[in-house]
């Protein structure tokens, strides 16, 4: 018997950092100086908070560029970033800052134009708790997943890539490590990993994961 999959959940407390951007240039500068937890909050956390809907811009930065700066070009550039492409917050920060500063350079007449309302940088602290639920097989996991909340799903599917430092998620990681010779398991691990998290809500993603796990017979 291999390792159990232990289900956990992540609760977040938000602190206001005091960094406040009123225009595009300040946004870029402050992305550069904000704490890691702030980059996490406005990208990964924002994704969870709005889990119930697929929207054009999942990150707070892109949303603000669209609604408060009224600069859709920047919103589009920031909105196209996929958090799955990053395994460190520093890499994500550099990419975000690079995009904003490039747009600032290309549109200098917009760089200091004041937004309708400021971008307040916040930071998230996570408290992780075990839910007291464990699965020994993919089938068991499929039966348990309907009982867990969205924060649990976000923790294992989205936040995981920051924790395990891989372009992956806890579900795929578990399947691969426990059943490395089972082709069906490996296929399901790949399928979970390739799900488009931007075009499905978290509850929809959960349903898809459950269906995939049900296909595995171990």
């Amino acid at each position, binding site marked *: 018997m291999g390792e159990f999959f232990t289900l956990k959940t992540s*609760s977040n*407390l938000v602190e206001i950092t005091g960094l406040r951007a009123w225009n595009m240039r300040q946004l870029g500068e402050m992305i550069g100086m904000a704490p890691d937890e702030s980059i996490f909050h406005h990208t990964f956390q924002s994704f969870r908070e709005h889990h119930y*809907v697929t929207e054009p811009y999942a990150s707070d930065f892109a949303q603000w560029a669209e*609604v408060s700066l009224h600069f859709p070009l920047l919103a589009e550039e920031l909105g196209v970033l996929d958090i799955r492409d990053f395994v460190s917050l520093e890499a994500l920060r550099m990419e975000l800052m690079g995009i904003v500063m490039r747009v600032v350079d290309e549109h200098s007449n917009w760089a200091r134009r004041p937004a309708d309302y*400021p971008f307040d940088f916040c930071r998230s602290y996570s408290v992780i708790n075990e*839910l007291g639920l464990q699965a020994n097989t993919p089938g068991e996991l499929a039966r348990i997943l309907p009982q867990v909340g969205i924060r649990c799903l976000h923790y294992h599917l989205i936040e995981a890539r920051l924790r395990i430092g891989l372009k992956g998620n806890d579900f795929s990681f578990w399947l691969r490590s426990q059943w490395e010779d089972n082709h069906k398991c490996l296929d399901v691990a790949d399928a979970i990993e390739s799900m488009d998290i931007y075009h499905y809500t978290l509850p929809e993603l959960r349903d898809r994961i459950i269906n995939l796990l049900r296909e595995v017979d171990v």
Partner: protein
Amino acid sequence: MRENSVCANALDEYTPLIGESEVKELRLLVERLGSVRMTMINSTRTGGGVAEILWRLMPLFEELGVQATWQVMKGDEPFFQVTKNIHNALHGMPHELTPKEREIYLSTTKANAPDLDFDHDFIFIHDPQPAGLIKYVKSRKATWIWRCHIDISHPVPGVWNFLEPTLRRYHSAIVSSPAFAQGKLGIRQFLFYPSIDPLSDKNREIPQREINGILKRLGIPKDKPIVLQVSRYDRLKDPIGVIRAFRLAQRHVPCRLVLAGGAADDDPEGAEVLAEVKAESGDDPDIHILVLPPDSNLEINALQRAATVVLQKSLREGFGLTVTEGLWKKRAVIGSAVGGIPNQIRNEVNGVLVHSVAGCANEIRRLLSDRVLRERFGKYGHEAVREEFLITGALRRYLLLMLMLREGLH
């Protein structure tokens, strides 16, 4: 004993609304927190949003096994006049505190200190009235946290200078929106969004029959879609702008406007604004101006549920809980991009943000004509409130803050 018809609900009653996993998470947080003693201190047990939420929050703490008490400081009329001036000045309304006012504030808080129990692990002080207590308590065993429910981003300097040294004695503060934080406070500021109770009279599900009865009693026909703004008669809520936006929309789509606000008898400016609103509406039979008593929670609930579009077209706003209420009831909500409204409305996802009378008029027209869009906004608005703005979320945040302070923040 409960006051003002406020009755508490058991945690299990929230389960169908928030899901079992949310309730389980609350229990896990309490288990991990272990034994703690906490107290909330404010200045009134009746009236106002803070007391309203504490009446409902405290029994939930108790049910979860947290040793939580609620204490109320005492004050006389001159004290509350001073704290009202402080409150307004923190909001930016010009006022200089006289030496007499300072003396009244300090002596009242000092006189209260011996009568209150500070033998707790966490002390949450609500708003400016009891904030001075920290100066008169010698024991530093407890962690003191200032829960500020008002916007302190642009205070009058003199009043701020009077309060700031006291506030700096706190471990941290809690504010209701990033926009309300104070950059010069010098202590950590955490974000707790205000919350609504989905089981209260103002927000609970009510049968259509009851809604119809209330509309009939208020004299509002159901023959046309209703556009609603609930807010006191205050220029900052822009009721005249609402009427002008409605008139522009009304040319294209048949509809009724309902403005519902509180009685203005003791508020000379409110009475003046109400008169202006009545003059602006003229004798238009499609405009209904309601002056409701303060305890009209069921009436507001019914109006919000009967409305097709809910507006909050404020020029300045606090957090804007009427927006939260409209979103929770799955209404299509149009709000100005001011105060806490952009924290609640994700533009074009669960509602729309507007910046002018014309913008508001366009959106009224669009939403009245597009049922699918209204339903989509309504669905996502409800989810947004479930995720962030319910009383159970406030409970979770208090538990999280105590847990993280006890375990040590990074």
